[in-house]
């Protein structure tokens, strides 16, 4: 009877799935390009012919011109230079915090899911309790009392507060990858743990991890904006972050409402950067999900 049960009409035809696997698409590449440009600017700002972000090089509140692409702020500082230097801070916080989060949460999550048993129970109960704690409140209160502010402290606090979340995501991804038959097959064949982890599990967890990393960086960059608004990010006079720039603009816009580029540019760049991260992360996730269904 085996032959008679071979399906001939794939289910997706009888029941129409609206979300079929799409090609990667132009917009995804635009997003990747935008991320690359921002990353490039952040890395290369000191070597590019970009004005000093702290120097008052022109008249205050000038409109956009060839000399000052985005105009100048209320103190006559070049906005383009400030946005470019600001990307170093914002991206630095985002990537740095996620490096800490993944550096601690990733291995712990994989270990718990791979070993299971008591280790998993112990680690998971601690992590899930921490997860219940609203982390932004912890971040705000810790940073508000830990003087003086510095980039390293912000990265450290935000990074550590992201550990439980990273742990949960990686643990879940490892668990689902580990339950696949080929992992069982590898175990039965007597593969060493190290081999299973690095050759079988890691490649399967990596796509989930990567897309979550992108979402994480986006969240942290927005969070840095919140901290800047509360005056808890780094001192805007030493080095402005995107959040600082938006906060400055908000305050100076009361006096010079005609200087709207001051708020439009930094907030648009921040939102578009987050949008690109979200979009690429989302495509990545659905791309790999669909592949798995097809298998």
């Amino acid at each position, binding site marked *: 009877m085996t032959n008679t049960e071979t399906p001939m009409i794939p289910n997706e035809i009888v029941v129409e799935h609206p979300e079929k696997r799409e090609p990667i698409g132009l917009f995804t590449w635009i997003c990747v390009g935008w991320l690359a440009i921002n990353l490039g600017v952040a890395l290369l700002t000191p070597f590019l012919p970009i004005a000093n972000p702290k120097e008052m090089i022109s008249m205050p509140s000038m409109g956009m011109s060839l000399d000052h692409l985005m105009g100048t702020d209320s103190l006559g500082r070049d906005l383009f230079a400030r946005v470019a230097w600001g990307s170093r801070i914002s991206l630095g916080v985002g990537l740095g915090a996620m490096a800490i989060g993944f550096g601690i949460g990733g291995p712990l999550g994989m270990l718990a899911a791979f070993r299971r048993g008591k280790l998993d129970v112990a680690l998971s109960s601690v992590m899930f*309790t921490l997860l219940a704690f*609203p982390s932004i409140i912890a971040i705000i209160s810790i940073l508000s009392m830990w*003087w003086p502010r510095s980039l390293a402290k912000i990265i450290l606090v935000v990074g550590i507060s992201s550990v439980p979340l990273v742990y949960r995501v990686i643990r879940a991804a490892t668990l689902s990858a580990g339950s696949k038959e080929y992992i069982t097959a590898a175990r039965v064949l007597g593969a060493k743990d190290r081999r299973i982890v690095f050759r079988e599990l890691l490649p399967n967890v990596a796509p989930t991890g990567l897309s979550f990393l992108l979402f994480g960086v986006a969240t942290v960059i927005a969070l840095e904006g919140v901290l800047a*608004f509360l005056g808890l990010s780094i001192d805007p006079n030493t080095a402005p972050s995107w959040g600082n720039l*938006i906060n400055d603009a908000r305050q100076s816009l009361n006096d010079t409402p005609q200087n709207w580029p001051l708020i439009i540019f930094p907030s648009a760049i921040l939102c578009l950067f987050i*949008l690109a991260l979200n979009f690429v992360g989302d495509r990545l996730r659905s791309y790999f999900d669909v592949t798995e269904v097809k298998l």
Partner: protein
Amino acid sequence: MLKYFIKRLVALVAIIIAISIGSFFMIQLLPGDLATSILGVANTPANKRELYARLGLDKGLVQQYLTWMGHVLQGDLGKSYITGESINTSIGKSLPIDLEIIFLSQIVAFACAIPLAMKAARKPNGLFDRLSNGLTFGLLSVPSFIIVVYLVLIIAIKAQIPGTGPGSFTRWPEWAWLFTDTGMFFTTVGHNLTSMVIPTLALSIGSFVVYFRVLRSDLIATLQEEFITMARSKGLSSRRIMWRHAFRPSSVALLGTAGINIGGLIAGGFVVQYLLAIPGLGGLLIASITLQDYLVIQSTVFVVAVAVIVINFTVDFITTLVDPRIARD
């Protein structure tokens, strides 16, 4: 069902204890000198010793924690070291404001998200679906603090709508007024609602986007289920199928999302409150951070964290009532 409920309740208590320990030690272990912030220039070693003895801070940390917890369990959060005001009173004044903002914003978010998600899910990949899907994806990437800034710029400054900008917050009137001066009561309610426009919009946009996207994709999946075809074969109207057969199972996912989201809103609302000078819990927390008012920070953090967890627990419990599948594992 009962067993499941009790299991969750035990976990809830354990988490609340963990949080109390967390919020206590987090504050204690941080650098910063309480004596300086209270005594200022009078911070001599003798004064400091006297102050610590008076506040009970000369005892061991564990004993301090137990004393604090003992008071908290009796419903007393203590008094501010700096202003001397009862923390119960401060939180009692602030909390209703948070609740009002959250309540209003959730009503707006659900009222927009549910019908729009249903319309989009009816024709997946149709014009309306593509448009709304793209638009909400874009909005998803706009942090709430940016939304507030633009709302203030547009509504309060450009459109000059009075009572909407920062600092224009009006408290909800006391109920007693309704019986003594009805006119005044409704005027104040009007002022209050006007001053709620921006914070409500700011928080509801973020919630709306999340709810819309979750409900839409869940509805699309649900509408492909065999039990929907089955409901069609009974000769039921599309409207009835949408609400009774598709929305109910999909609302499980929506509720779960709402639980997580409302928890986040309490915390996320802080920035909104700060920017608009609204004296809710966010305002209280940030004011006491500026004053380095340790006990108020500690108590506010504790209360907010417990509120978030209790909300999550409640939503979780409602979810199991709606969906009998969950409690059965």
